[in-house]
C-alpha cells in the first residue's frame, strides 16, 4: 500500500496539470485560411455564420485554389475571448483571421497577439470611407492600427408598447431620469402581473455585456470621468456615481423588477432575453444593444418575430438626474484582425478586403443590425431602410461614449462584473461592493488610481 504514495502524488499532479494544458493542432497548408469567430449559444441564431460563409464562398470563387476554413466558436463571450487568446499564442493553432471585440483589442495588442495592418491600410482606397472614431477603435498605444471594424453599436431602452398600453404608459415613452425608468417598471409590475418589468444585464455570467449595457450605461450618466480620468491617466475610485449605479441594480433586483436573479446571472441571459423573453412578450423594458433586431429576422434569426417593428418602441437611456445631454449611450463594435502568428497574413488581408467590399459591408450591416462605420455604407439605401429603429440608434452615435481603450480594461471590467454580481445576489451592499472593487482596482492597475469622493 505504501507504494501508492508517490503514485497518488503523481495522480494529483497530473490531474492538476491536465486541466491547464491546451489542445494542439496543425498549421495547415498555405492555401487555406482559417477564420475564427463567435457563434451564438443558441443554435438557431446563424446570422454571423451565414454571412461569414457567404463572404468565404465569394472569396474562394474569386481566388481559385484558395480555401477558407471556418472556425465558429460556440461559447459565451468570456469563453470565446479565452479560446481565441489561447489559439493565437501558437503558430500551430493561430487562425489567420480573428473576430476581435474592440473591448479586448488593446489588451491583445499589448500582449503582442495581433499584427499591425498599417502597411495594407496605406494602400487600401476604402480606408478613407471609415469614420474617424471607427478607425481609432482598433488603434494600439503605439499608434498603429490592428483591425478593420465592420460596424458599431449603440445602446438604449427597448420597450413593449402592448405591455405599456396595459400598464397605462405612453407609447412614445422617453424617461428623463433613472427614477422615471424605475417608476415605469414599478407601474408595469403593479398593473401587468406575470411580466418582467425591466431587464438590466448584471453579474459575471453575461460578461462584458453586463458591464457595458448594464453598469456603464448607468455610470456614464452619473457625472464626468467616473471610471477613468484621462487628464491624470488614473483610474477612479470611491465615486458616488459608482455606488449609485450599484444602488440602481440593487433596486431593480431587490424589488424584483428584473428577471429572477438566478436567470439574470446565468451566462445564457443575453440569448434568453433576445430569443425568448422579448419575442414572447414577457419583458416590458430591456436595456440592450442596437443589434437586437438581428435576432428576429426571418432568416438566420434565433426567433423570427415579424410583428416586432410595431410592438417595440425605443427610448434613449437617461442620465441619473437628467443632466445634459440628457441621454447616455456607449458605442462598441468588433473588428477583423490578423494574429501575429498567422502564417498567411497577405492572404488574410485579401479576405478582409473581401469582407469590406461595399456590397459585403452593406450586407453585414443589414443582416447583423449593425450601425455603419463607413460613409458609403451609411448612405446606401439598402442600409438606411434595413431595420426599423436603425435611424434612432444611428442618432445615438453622436452622444455615444467609449470605454477606456487601455490594455488593462478587460480586467477592470471583470472586477466591475464581480461588484455587480455581489450586489445582485444581495451578498454585499453597494458600498461594500464598491469598496471591494476599489481594492481590486488598485492591485489591477498597480496603484495608478485617484480617489474622487
Amino acid at each position, binding site marked *: 500500500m505504501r507504494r501508492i504514495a508517490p503514485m497518488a502524488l503523481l495522480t494529483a499532479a497530473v490531474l492538476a496539470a491536465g486541466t491547464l494544458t491546451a489542445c494542439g493542432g496543425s498549421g495547415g497548408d498555405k492555401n487555406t485560411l482559417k477564420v475564427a469567430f463567435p457563434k451564438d449559444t443558441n443554435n438557431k441564431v446563424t446570422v454571423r455564420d451565414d454571412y461569414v460563409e457567404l463572404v468565404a464562398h465569394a472569396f474562394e470563387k474569386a481566388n481559385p485554389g484558395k480555401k477558407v476554413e471556418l472556425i465558429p466558436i460556440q461559447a459565451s463571450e468570456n469563453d470565446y475571448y479565452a479560446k481565441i487568446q489561447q489559439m493565437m499564442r501558437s503558430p500551430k493553432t493561430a487562425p489567420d483571421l480573428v473576430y476581435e471585440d474592440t473591448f479586448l483589442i488593446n489588451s491583445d495588442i499589448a500582449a503582442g497577439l495581433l499584427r499591425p495592418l498599417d502597411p495594407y491600410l496605406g494602400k487600401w482606397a476604402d480606408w478613407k470611407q471609415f469614420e474617424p472614431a471607427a478607425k481609432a477603435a482598433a488603434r494600439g498605444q503605439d499608434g498603429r492600427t490592428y483591425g478593420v471594424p465592420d460596424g458599431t453599436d449603440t445602446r438604449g431602452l427597448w420597450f413593449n408598447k402592448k405591455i405599456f398600453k396595459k400598464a397605462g404608459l405612453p407609447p412614445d415613452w422617453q424617461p428623463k431620469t433613472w427614477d422615471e425608468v424605475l417608476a415605469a417598471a414599478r407601474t408595469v409590475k403593479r398593473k401587468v402581473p406575470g411580466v418582467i418589468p425591466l431587464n438590466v444585464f448584471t453579474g459575471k455570467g453575461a460578461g462584458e455585456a453586463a458591464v457595458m449595457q448594464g453598469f456603464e450605461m448607468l455610470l456614464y450618466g452619473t457625472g464626468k470621468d467616473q471610471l477613468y480620468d484621462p487628464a491624470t491617466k488614473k483610474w477612479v475610485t470611491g465615486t458616488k456615481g459608482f455606488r449609485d449605479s450599484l444602488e440602481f441594480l440593487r433596486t431593480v433586483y431587490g424589488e424584483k423588477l428584473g428577471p429572477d436573479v438566478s436567470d439574470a446571472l446565468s451566462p445564457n441571459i443575453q440569448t434568453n432575453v433576445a430569443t425568448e423573453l422579448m419575442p414572447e412578450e414577457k419583458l416590458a423594458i430591456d436595456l440592450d444593444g442596437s443589434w437586437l433586431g438581428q435576432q428576429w429576422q426571418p432568416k438566420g434569426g434565433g426567433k423570427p418575430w415579424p410583428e416586432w417593428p410595431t410592438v417595440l418602441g425605443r427610448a434613449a437611456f437617461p442620465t441619473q438626474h437628467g443632466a445634459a445631454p440628457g441621454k447616455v449611450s456607449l458605442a462598441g463594435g468588433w473588428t477583423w484582425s490578423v494574429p501575429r502568428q498567422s502564417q498567411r497574413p497577405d492572404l488574410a488581408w485579401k479576405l478582409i478586403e473581401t469582407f469590406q467590399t461595399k456590397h459585403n459591408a452593406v450586407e453585414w450591416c443589414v443582416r447583423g443590425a449593425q450601425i455603419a462605420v463607413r460613409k458609403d455604407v451609411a448612405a446606401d439605401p439598402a442600409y438606411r431602410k434595413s431595420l426599423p429603429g436603425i435611424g434612432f440608434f444611428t442618432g445615438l452615435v453622436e452622444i455615444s461614449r467609449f470605454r477606456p481603450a487601455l490594455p488593462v480594461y478587460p480586467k477592470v471590467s471583470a472586477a466591475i462584473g*464581480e461588484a455587480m454580481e455581489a450586489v445582485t445576489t444581495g*451578498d454585499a451592499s453597494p458600498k461594500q461592493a464598491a469598496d471591494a472593487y476599489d481594492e481590486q482596482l488598485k492591485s489591477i492597475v498597480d496603484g495608478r488610481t485617484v480617489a474622487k469622493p
Partner: protein
Amino acid sequence: MSRAAPTAAYGTAGRGARPRRRALLRWSPLAPATVLLLLFLAGPIGYCVYIAFTDMQLTGQESTSFVGLANFRHAFGDPAFLNAVVLTLVFTLVSSILGQNTLGLALAALMRRASRPVRTLAGAVVLTAWVLPEIVAGFLLYTFFERRGTLNAVLDWLHLPSQNWLFTLPILAVSFANVWRGTAFSMLIYSAALAEIPQEVTESAEVDGASGRQRLWHITLPMIRRSIGTNLMLNTLQTLSVFGLIWAMTRGGPGSRSQTLPVFMYDQAFLKSLIGYGTAVALLLLVVGALFSVVYLRLLREEV
C-alpha cells in the same frame, strides 16, 4: 530488486563495471517508458511549476518575467482564494467522504443481500451515472436542480415547497451532483472488498451471537480497512479536481458561492488572464491533494 541483487554479487565479485552495465541492460526495456514519462508527465509539471513563479498573462502583457513567490503571497492574502479553499474542503467532505464513500459502502452491502435481478438492475442504474461523460452529467443535473427543472416539477406535483438550490445553496447542489455521479466507483470497490471477506469469519461471529451492527463494526469494517483507505484516497483526489461538473452547473456562482479551487484557477488563468497566478493556485491545489494523501496513508499504516 531484492532477488536480483545477490545474483549480481556472485557474478561480479567486487568489480563495479559489470553490475552497472547489467543494471543498464535491465533498465533498457523500460527506457522508452521512462522517456515518455519524463516527456509527458514530468515535462508539463515542471513547466507548470516554472509558470507559477512568473507573471505570465494570456493577454495585456507581452513579456513574462520571474516574480518569485509573489503569486503565492497574493494567494494567501486573497479572500477569494481562501473562500475557494473552504468551499473545496466542504465539497470534498460532503460529496466524497460523506457522500460517495458512505453511500457506496451501503449500496455494496445491500447489493450482497439483494436478489439477482435487483442487483443487476440497481448496479446498471448506478453505473450509468458513472459512465456518463462529466459534462453531460453536469447538464443533466443542471436541468434537474434548475428553478424550472425536474426536481421542482416533482416537488410541485407532490405539493411540496420548491427549491432553487443552484442559487441558494449551490455548493450543496454540486455536491449532490458529484455524489450522484461518483458513487458507482465506491460501490464497485466495496463490492469487491466485501466479496473477499471469508464466509467462515462472518459465520463464526454469527454463531457467537454478534448482532448485525456488531458484525459490521468488528468484522466487516476492519477487514476492508485497506479498501476504505484506497477508496477514500482515490475519491478525494478525483473530487478535488472536479471542474466540468461545477462549471456546467453553476460556473462557480452565483457570486463565488460554489467557486472551488479548480473553478477559481480557471477563472484566474483564463477569464482574468492571469496564467501565472492561476498556475500557482493549481500547485496549491496539488498541495491540498498531497495533504489528504498523507493523512490517508497514515491511517492505512496503523495495524489493527
